[in-house]
């Protein structure tokens, strides 16, 4: 499937874009995130990063379909 991915904060730098459309056989945030890491030769930071689906926090293992917008939030650095 093709899934839209939104990136926030420093993940825009890591993955080169604010938003991208990703072609994948995977169907959950964790596997898709790991595909992105592999593609960009970036370390797995899933312990620190939070996945969201349609602007709502979700589990890494939630099943996705093409209607969903997936997002990755790096650790907060406000204040």
């Amino acid at each position, binding site marked *: 499937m093709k899934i839209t991915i939104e990136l*926030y*904060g*420093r993940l825009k*730098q890591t993955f080169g874009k604010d938003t991208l459309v990703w072609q994948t056989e995977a169907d959950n945030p964790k596997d898709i995130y790991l595909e992105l890491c592999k593609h960009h030769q970036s370390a797995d930071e899933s312990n620190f990063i*939070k996945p*969201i689906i349609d*602007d*709502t*926090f979700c589990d890494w293992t939630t099943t996705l379909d093409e209607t969903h917008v997936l*997002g990755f*939030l*790096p*650790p*907060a*650095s*406000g*204040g």
Partner: protein
Amino acid sequence: MFTLTEQKIDHNMLTEKVKNKRSGAFACFEGWVRNHNHGKSVTALHYEAHDKLAVEVGAQIVAQALKNFDINHAHCCHRVGALAVGDVAIWVGVSADHRGAAFAACEYILNQVKAEVPIWKNEYYENGESGWVEANHCC
């Protein structure tokens, strides 16, 4: 309550949100954009938020503070967009009958917001570089 704003943070307006006649104590914190970080000269910075989730998570933190501490009102406002050195990035205000709870709740809200609310800081340096700030120990 927790709010985001693109405007300059207005202390007097925000203080009105927590003001009441039974409170004897008001503790307040402002995070200011400072001119240095990790040895680099900072000229400006930009805060980006996930607006919907920032407001949700921020409101949960303020609600939790109202449960955890003996306080009357609390408010936190975080600025987003472009800020200059000296600008206020975050404002936390708490009113309470007594000072101990006001200070404790104010510090709690600040720490939780910095750790949990999806807002990210991109700093611009004098040498022309810029960078997303990783862990934020700025204030």
